[in-house]
């Protein structure tokens, strides 16, 4: 895993020193509130509904044991004993005091972490496949390139005051777990016909109030051209992006209004002009970064006891059925620790839970943890023979929920419980749906189903790419929940389609239940997933389940 060198270390210390001075200069009047706002945002500090919120970057979702422990320390010392893992591989602390924030940032810098550019109109935390470096289906590990992009974008002098925020995601696997088509720039590591490494470059994806899927702006970009090409895209966007209306300011609108071909021509023109500035120092740095990501020394061990324990223990077996993913090394598995216990807040972990996960990563996981955009924690390298011990520790810490990828593994934004922008609650809806399906006890029968909930049209809960998407709105002072169906954030990406009139808070759980029971009634067989059924039969049967006479009578 990446460790800061002297330059990185000095950089974050200097940055904390600058921010400490900015807080003082806000208080003494040197900076107006309007001027301070973007400066605090580009250091991760939001003003929320009740308090400040600090968003800490977990670049490409990779965490070391000491870093996870430090997050636990921060949660206890400066917050209320928990943190919230987000859909963009960040962690949010919801209750810090402004005067403590520079000290928190120093505590992060001690372990090579920061909150830089987790907000504001700049290039945000670069996200990557949370199974990177471990998944059996991977072509190349995207994390070294993500780290290079982190360094390139950090304090980039030209791009700190863009028209709007800018999100980059990268995957090195054909199975897209990084939702690259919903990012301002999506990068897919590929090889061309000659076997040379490069990228398929997508541009203009994004969710929010105008959801769009990214389009291919370059079908093959040679690996060595990555930074100049990304810089050309950002430069074109900085000058052409709209600044008259913040809702039209994302690059997806720039691409849409100018047309992909015209935007591409502008990018290529800039690329031709600036390419010669790159003389190979970036390639040398990437080679150095790659050394940090050497795979751990995998071991070989018998699996008899694991198999015996699995055969004897149905609860453990259920957990291994849902929470494991194939690893490239023989005998190994990728473990997803669900932060979605029914009734809990999706993505929240207490300081104690963070420490348990850190201990497990230290004892059994080659010292590594990941944060997934689905708001769970991943132990990427675990030998299966260690799984019984891990599972028992997780159970003691209330972390052994066997629901990854199922109905109750819901993505939800913070919603009106925390967020100043929200128009409806999302966490309580997620909790209620999870509880209902726990009572029904059918989620293993239902199988893979992604429910995603946003508490306003800014779509932080990614509802547009949920198999079932739920959008909470405010209708004359009353919460109203709209349902979309058929969204997909993977390599077969699609945006969900609106079903019809929304539902009040007390009816949304029943509506979701009708959709799921309806699916069970019409699926071809147990192998056909919810999404496959929606794609096969279309929306109409599901509209019947939602709004049909049977449903109305039952309600």
């Amino acid at each position, binding site marked *: 895993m990446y460790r800061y060198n002297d*330059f990185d270390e*000095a*950089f974050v210390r*200097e*940055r904390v020193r*600058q921010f400490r*001075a*900015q807080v003082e*200069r806000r208080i003494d*009047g*040197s*900076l107006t509130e309007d*001027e301070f706002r*973007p*400066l605090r945002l580009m250091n991760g500090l939001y003003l929320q509904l009740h308090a400040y919120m600090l968003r800490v970057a977990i670049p490409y979702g990779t965490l070391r044991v000491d870093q996870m422990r430090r997050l636990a320390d921060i949660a206890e010392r400066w917050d209320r004993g928990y943190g919230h893992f987000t859909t963009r591989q960040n962690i949010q602390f919801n209750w810090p005091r402004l005067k403590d924030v520079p000290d928190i940032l120093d505590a992060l810098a001690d372990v090579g972490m920061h909150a830089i550019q987790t907000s504001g*109109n700049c290039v945000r935390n670069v996200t990557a496949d949370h199974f990177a470096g471990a998944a059996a289906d991977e072509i190349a590990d995207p994390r070294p390139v993500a780290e290079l992009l982190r*360094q*390139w974008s*950090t*304090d*980039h*002098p*030209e*791009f*700190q*005051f*863009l028209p709007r925020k800018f999100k980059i995601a990268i995957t090195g696997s054909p199975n897209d777990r990084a939702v690259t088509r919903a990012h301002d720039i999506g990068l897919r590591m590929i090889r061309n016909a000659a076997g040379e490494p490069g990228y398929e470059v997508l541009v203009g994806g994004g969710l929010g109030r105008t959801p769009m899927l990214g389009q291919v702006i370059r079908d093959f970009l040679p690996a060595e051209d990555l*930074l100049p090409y990304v810089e050309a895209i950002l*430069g074109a966007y*900085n*000058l052409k992006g709209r*600044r008259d209306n913040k809702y039209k300011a994302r690059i997806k609108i720039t691409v849409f209004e100018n047309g992909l071909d015209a935007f591409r021509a502008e990018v290529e023109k800039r690329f031709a*002009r*600036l390419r010669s*500035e*790159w*003389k190979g*120092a*970036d390639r040398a*740095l990437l080679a150095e970064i790659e050394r940090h990501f050497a795979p751990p020394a995998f071991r070989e061990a018998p699996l008899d006891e694991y198999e015996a324990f699995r055969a004897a223990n149905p609860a453990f077996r259920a957990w291994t059925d849902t929470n494991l993913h194939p690893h490239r090394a023989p005998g190994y598995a990728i473990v997803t620790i669900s932060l979605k216990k029914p009734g809990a807040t999706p993505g929240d972990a207490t300081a104690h839970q963070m420490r348990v996960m850190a201990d497990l990563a230290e004892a059994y996981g080659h010292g590594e943890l990941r944060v997934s955009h689905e708001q769970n924690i991943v132990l990427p390298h675990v030998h299966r023979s260690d799984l019984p011990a891990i599972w028992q520790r997780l159970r003691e810490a209330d972390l052994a929920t066997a629901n990854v990828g199922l109905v109750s593994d819901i993505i939800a934004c913070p919603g009106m419980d925390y967020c100043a922008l929200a128009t409806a609650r999302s966490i309580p809806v997620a909790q209620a749906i999870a509880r209902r399906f726990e009572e029904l006890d059918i989620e293993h029968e239902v199988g893979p189903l992604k429910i995603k909930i946003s508490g306003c049209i800014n779509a932080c809960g990614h509802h547009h790419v949920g198999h079932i998407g739920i959008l909470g709105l405010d209708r004359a002072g009353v919460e109203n929940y709209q349902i979309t169906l058929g969204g997909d954030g993977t390599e077969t990406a699609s945006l969900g389609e609106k079903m019809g009139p929304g539902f009040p808070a007390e009816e949304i759980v029943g509506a979701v239940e009708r959709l799921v029971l309806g699916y069970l009634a019409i699926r071809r067989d147990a192998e056909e997933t919810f999404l496959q059924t929606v794609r096969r039969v279309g929306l109409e049967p599901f509209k019947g389940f939602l709004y049909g006479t049977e449903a109305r009578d039952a309600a």
Partner: protein
Amino acid sequence: MTIIVTDRGFAADDFARPIHPLEGVEALKDGEGIEIGPADDPGALIPLLGRIGLIRIRFPVFADGRGFSHARDLRRCGYAGRLRAAGHVLADQYAMCRRSGFDEVEIDEALAARQPQDQWLARANWRDHWYQARLRAPLCA
């Protein structure tokens, strides 16, 4: 009176030649200045770059970052003359200005009073802690 900020701190404006708006570029005499705004296309200046004594890029509001890209583009196109950011530029943006290719920043007296010289000199170390310089040859060192 406006104040010119450089790595040495505050000074009076010593550029005594006329500064023309972009649309008045035909009247430019050798060594005179040109001013552009964020929405202007500085491409029209490319044939004239050797004759211009100063380019002043206006920042009507500090949050509009187009001026940084204009500065980079002018340097990329070979402009080696004096390049000035003028208007609502914060001390916190001084390093971004220098790294984008600006030589100096022009601010008014009110901003200079609110953000005095020491706040700008605190960012005069803009060559340090600079990821971009590590990734490629420095822009115009």
